[in-house]
């Protein structure tokens, strides 16, 4: 198992049991998730890989409390988030989401954005929160940008600030929904290194959705490959590359072997999803 | 029909909407009668005729030829002004968009004249044009013209440059670029402009009919219908006139939507 910092003993353990989600938007039932179970240990980086539109996001949304689930249950540290009799989890700062398109409030500066959480939760006074936000942003290498609006900085910087905004609340779990999707490979690389550095510092549990295989292996402790819709667990691959990892890791022989393994599992699903997508359009 | 009813009552939004309108009519009724019942006037709407009286008045005017003649008169004014504005406005806007020199010379005067409210032109045009009818047509034209030009200009200048480049590298001539790319690319804004322009046109026609007293030569119009009801002190007929104009305006803007739908098949698919 990867090296963990000691302060995160038993924190952010997620257990997903037999979760099923059926949508009914137009009278036609669509099954997004079908009897999906997985266990995520506290302080683990769990990567979910699967074709787009396969229901991965549904899983994340039900953990975060945006969607209800139809069957099954989800527990966090033994506490029921949602399950029988309680279809929808409540939203809470212990489970922070970083969104696909970025959801820093464009009308607040980076510092105000980061300070927002503690302020509205009344965990700190406004000025304390602003101070702390300033420090945390500076630690993330954004010190000279704290008074800028998100629209003024590059997407990479905005994404870093968004992760800082999540972390200032000391969440148990960080839920990331393809946060680096729109970035080019080189920017992504830098973002990965920065996220790993953050992880090594905080040891927060990370639930990360992606369909970039290299990203999955480079960041993760475990890679869960899921099938195309409805979303089911197809294969779990343990990544035993030691931390801290650097960009050289990505050209190691070990990495290459894992990539072959994941690639085979995913490619089949990708072709299936692609064909299904074409059929749906026609 | 059942389909329509189902759509209306089948969901919460529909039920709430219908009940809101019913409540609105009840308040209208109560408000108009309150003075009679209790002696207290509710916020000055005590003078408004109750809905039932309006309905009766409506039934009263429907068989009259004069009422329908006012529809015809107003509609023909609106359509004349509007069509002339389209015919002149669209090429003018496109020219402003594609030719830099044309824009440089003609855009500033256009911008200077644009903020003057169309109705402020009414007396001047009454003086200038030989007949009342022509001056109403002119002001109507002005009302729609500015809106249409601004929309056409904005739309044409916002066309994605990559369409132009793609067409160019496939060997399209300037002529083709204009007819195959610029014009269809501007269509959505043309229709937006037309819809807004149509609204303004109705306002202007009404005002012009009221101010010029419409009836003398032009044969009334809905604006004059309201105005003469006002002069005659028939409150029910005023409200009937208002509703009629509401319907007329609604009909003309849905006509524009229909036409737009027909001309822009690729926009239906959103």
């Amino acid at each position, binding site marked *: 198992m990867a090296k963990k910092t000691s302060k995160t003993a038993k924190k952010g353990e997620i257990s997903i049991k037999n979760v099923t989600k059926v949508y009914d938007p137009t009278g036609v039932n669509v099954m997004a998730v079908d009897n999906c179970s997985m266990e995520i240990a506290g302080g683990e980086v769990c990567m979910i890989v699967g074709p787009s539109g396969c229901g991965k996001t549904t899983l994340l949304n039900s953990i975060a409390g945006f969607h209800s689930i139809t069957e099954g249950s989800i527990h966090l540290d033994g506490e029921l988030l949602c399950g029988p009799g309680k279809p929808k989890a409540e939203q809470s700062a212990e489970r922070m*989401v970083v969104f696909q398109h970025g959801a820093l*409030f464009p009308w607040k500066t980076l510092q105000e954005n980061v300070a927002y959480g503690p302020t*509205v939760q009344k965990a700190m006074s406004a000025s304390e929160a602003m101070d702390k936000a300033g420090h945390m942003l500076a630690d993330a290498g954004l010190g000279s940008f704290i008074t800028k609006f998100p629209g003024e900085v590059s997407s990479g910087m905005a994404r870093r600030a968004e992760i800082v905004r999540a972390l200032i609340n000391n969440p148990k779990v960080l839920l990331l929904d393809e946060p680096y999707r729109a970035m080019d490979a080189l920017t992504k690389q830098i973002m990965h290194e920065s996220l790993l550095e953050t992880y090594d510092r905080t040891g927060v549990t990370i639930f990360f959705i992606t369909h970039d295989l290299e990203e999955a292996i480079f960041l993760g402790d475990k890679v869960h490959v899921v099938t195309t819709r409805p979303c089911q667990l197809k294969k779990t691959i343990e990544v035993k590359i030691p931390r801290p990892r650097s960009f050289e890791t990505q050209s190691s022989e070990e990495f290459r072997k894992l990539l072959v393994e994941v690639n085979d599992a995913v490619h089949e699903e990708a072709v299936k999803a692609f064909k299904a997508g074409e059929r749906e359009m026609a | 029909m059942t389909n329509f009813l189902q759509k209306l009552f089948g969901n919460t939004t529909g039920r709430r909407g219908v009940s809101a*309108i019913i409540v609105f009519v009840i308040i209208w009724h109560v408000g108009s009668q309150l003075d009679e019942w209790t002696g207290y006037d509710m916020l000055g709407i005590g003078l408004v005729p109750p809905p039932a009286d309006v309905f009766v008045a409506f039934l009263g005017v429907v068989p009259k030829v004069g009422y329908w003649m006012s529809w015809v008169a107003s509609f023909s004014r609106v359509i004349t002004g509007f069509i002339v504005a389209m015919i002149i406005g669209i090429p003018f806007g496109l020219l402003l968009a594609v030719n830099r020199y044309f824009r440089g010379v003609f855009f500033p005067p256009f911008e200077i004249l644009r903020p003057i409210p169309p109705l402020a032109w009414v007396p001047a045009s009454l003086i200038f044009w030989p007949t009342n009818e022509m001056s109403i047509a002119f002001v109507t034209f002005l009302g729609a013209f500015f809106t249409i030009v601004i929309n056409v200009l904005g739309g044409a200048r916002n066309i994605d440059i990559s369409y132009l480049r793609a067409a160019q590298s496939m060997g399209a001539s300037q002529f083709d670029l204009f007819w195959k790319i610029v014009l269809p690319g501007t269509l959505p804004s043309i229709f937006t402009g037309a819809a807004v322009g149509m609204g303004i046109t109705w306002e202007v026609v009404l005002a012009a009919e009221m101010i010029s007293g419409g009836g003398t030569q032009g044969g009334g119009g809905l604006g004059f219908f309201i105005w003469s009801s006002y002069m005659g002190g028939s409150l029910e007929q005023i409200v009937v006139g208002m509703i009629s104009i509401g319907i007329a305006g609604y009909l003309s*803007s849905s006509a524009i939507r229909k036409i737009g739908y027909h001309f822009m098949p690729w926009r239906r698919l959103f």
Partner: protein
Amino acid sequence: MSNAANTRISEPQGIDMVFYRIKKNFTSVDPYLTVFGIFLWLFAYWVLCEGLQIWRFSKLPGPVAISKDWFAFEPFQGISIFTQEYYEHIRVSCQRILIAFGLATGLGVPLGLFMGWSRKVRDYVFPIIETLRPIPILAWVPLSILLLPGFEGPVIFLATLASFFVTALNAMLGVDSIDEEYFRAAGCLGSSKWDVFKNVVVPGALPFIFTGLQISIGVAWFSLVAAEMVSGDLGLGYLIVDAYMNNVTVPMVIAMITLGFIGYFSSGCVRALGNKLMAWHVKELAQQGR
């Protein structure tokens, strides 16, 4: 061939930047075209109305006649920049617009925001607004004259009504335009309902609100002029009709031009206020090169 690729020019600062922009502006053909265009237009106007006096153009006052009267101590036809009356009309119109626009904004923006934010409010209020909206504002003129007392009441009512619809609808669309993810993010961060309204709904809808306000002030002027023309005792719209009735054409045109200026100025004010309140939006657009 230029050597631009190899030379480095440092970015001009402060006043130098201003000079640079001015210089750059005047090396292009645009400002000359503008001057030429305005001159051409004035010249055509002069030729038609005063030079040749062809057809019915002779009935309209030309630019020379207008400017002579406008800037005269003792204007021939009653109105100039030195007469008290001129400013009185302007004052009255502006005062009415301020009241109407203020009322419409004060009522329309909150109503629109609530319509966008709460499904329930929208379901109940929106159908009523949609039923009333197709009725052109001017169709309300006789009714409002009958129902509301005095000259001020109807005029202000009409201008308010016109801009109220525009403002409320745009505020509602503004809330619709806010990405769902911002609401979710705010929820995750532990916001109360009120926090969401204050920190997401209001700022997120601002760009649309200000687009709406810009249109709304134009519409307010439009209806105000109409209302003043039909019923009124003072104001620029009244001045136009009054001049027409008294067969003096110069004050009529002066009032028209004045309306144009004030209308332009007032929408400029709304725009400036919007840009001040939405620094983030302006900077974002600038970043995208727009």
